[in-house]
């Protein structure tokens, strides 16, 4: 079986802090990581390959040249091939243009199953996976918590707020992985050596996909949406903070506030 995992390199947003003076993001020194849901997707693919050893896993990442590191990590975990989709023409893309670009690359590759993460921790949109599926005309299952392959179909446990569905999709199809799908393994030392010595990351630029995409759908100019402004949230006016109270005084202060606001 041929599996393609689409990943994104993201800043570790749990490490991002606000500068208290300028109220801007401090990004210096913030590590870049493989997006967690995507990494679960890599692990799920590796487990499918363990069950069917003649499978082949290709990992694909759209991003700047630095994203090479994320692809090497995927190779070190055990993926077979890596493709970095990188060109200035792809820059500034919203989810529509991003999914158009990635779908154009996927059209050049053989696949039975495409796995993406549910959402990336920097944008949190969860849109690129389903949009890729639409561009390729594939059935999709998002929010996948468990998967297994049975012959020519994949069985997915698909999570909702109040229920889950067990659904069967015909191959080829696309699923989006929850972090719960599979806890990623660590890279092995041998894997890391292979990733840098034996394996290589292919770089695909615009020329590599020009015949499978309308260039009007790429990058900033191919994006239907545009960020008009971005801003850090204004902290709402801080209230009163009481220090050095006894427990009884603290209770009195809270009860007083609750009565003032007619909560009790």
């Amino acid at each position, binding site marked *: 079986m041929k599996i393609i995992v689409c990943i994104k390199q993201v800043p570790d947003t749990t490490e991002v802090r606000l500068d208290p003076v300028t109220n801007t993001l401090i990004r210096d020194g913030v590590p870049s990581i493989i997006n967690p849901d995507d990494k679960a997707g890599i692990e799920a693919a590796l487990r499918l390959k363990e069950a069917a050893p003649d499978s082949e896993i290709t990992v694909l990442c759209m991003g700047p040249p630095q994203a090479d590191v994320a692809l090497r990590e995927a190779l070190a975990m055990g993926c077979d091939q890596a493709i970095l989709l990188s060109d200035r023409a792809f820059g500034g893309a919203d989810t529509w243009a991003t999914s158009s670009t990635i779908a154009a690359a996927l059209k050049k590759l053989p696949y039975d199953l495409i796995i993406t993460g549910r959402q990336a921790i920097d944008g949190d949109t969860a849109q690129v996976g389903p949009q890729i599926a639409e*561009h390729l005309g594939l059935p999709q299952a998002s929010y996948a918590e468990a998967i297994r392959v049975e012959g020519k179909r994949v069985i997915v446990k698909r999570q909702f707020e109040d229920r889950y569905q067990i659904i069967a999709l015909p191959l080829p199809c696309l699923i989006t992985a929850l972090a719960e799908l599979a806890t990623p393994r660590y890279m092995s030392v041998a894997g890391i050596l292979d990733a840098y010595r034996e394996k290589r990351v292919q770089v695909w630029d615009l020329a590599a996909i020009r015949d499978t995409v309308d260039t009007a759908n790429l990058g900033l100019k191919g994006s239907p949406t545009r960020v008009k402004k971005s801003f*850090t949230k204004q902290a709402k006016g801080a209230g009163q903070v009481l220090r050095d109270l006894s427990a009884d005084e*603290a209770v009195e202060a809270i009860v007083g*506030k609750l009565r003032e606001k007619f*909560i*009790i």
Partner: protein
Amino acid sequence: MSKGIYVLAEQRDGEIQKVSFELIGEGVRLAAALGQQVTAVLLGAGFADQGETLLHYGADNVIIAEDPLLAEYMTEPYAKVLARIIRADQPEIFLFGATTIGRDLAPRVSARVHTGLTADCTKLEIEPESKLLAMTRPAFGGNIMATIICERHRPQMATVRPGVMKALAKDTARAGVVKRIDCGLTAADHNADILQVVKSSQKALDITEAKILVSGGRGLGSARGFEALRDLAEALGGEVSSSRANVDAGWIAKDRQVGQTGKTVRPDLYLACGISGAIQHVAGMEGSNLIIAINKNDTAPIFDVADLGIVGDLKVIVPKLTAAIRRLKQERAAIS
């Protein structure tokens, strides 16, 4: 010309979800700025009076598409029907709830009709001059807010976080047009088989509906720390919620989690106990009417958003607070 504000009325087992009424309420506000109407689109099977209910909550029109393939959510049949409606009616705006259904369906539809989509919006406004929809959403784990527009493609599409927009009060005097349409579905649209549907055994508690939330953070120290919070919540007539750390630690169920990766809540009272106030948490509760925080650490960021902050030990204060509130309520009961 594109016209009208459309919202997806999401149903599960025939029951319209609360977020749908919130979308209609928001749609009515936007419609006033545009001089247009609000249309709720309801997909499913075996409806009774759900269409009228949507009118009662403020929709001017309701479009109902009924087909057995639409009873339980599946991506392709839903996407096909919505794309047909969009191509036929050319709405100006289309809103979805940012639920697991909305976040699966809206991107699929946006790709099919070639328009932009903005995820998880927390604020929608009509720009006074351009009349464009300005869609504001958090990114970077809630660290940044971005306002996004979609200039040339229609409809302008957004998913909206449940619990953020306000529903109108139900008014049975409101009337409007309920139209049933032909879904145009064929066997080919059935491209995935649902083998099994397993509903949560007890009806999942929805903390977004609670008026009072007593919320616990890492400062509780253990799963048992929630016992004192449950007592306090019971005394106040509220529910217990949590920060992410305690959910990850397995101390409390995921459906109680408030924050960027949990739920957005805005109760009348949010009592944060031992919650430091990471930005991802604050993103999910800062809209609460009254925020009271108890924390040992007087530099905890939760104090920046709290109306009242108490620097102290919750393990001592919470039981005493519970006792004081019970006493007050008993006294009041005795008087009346």
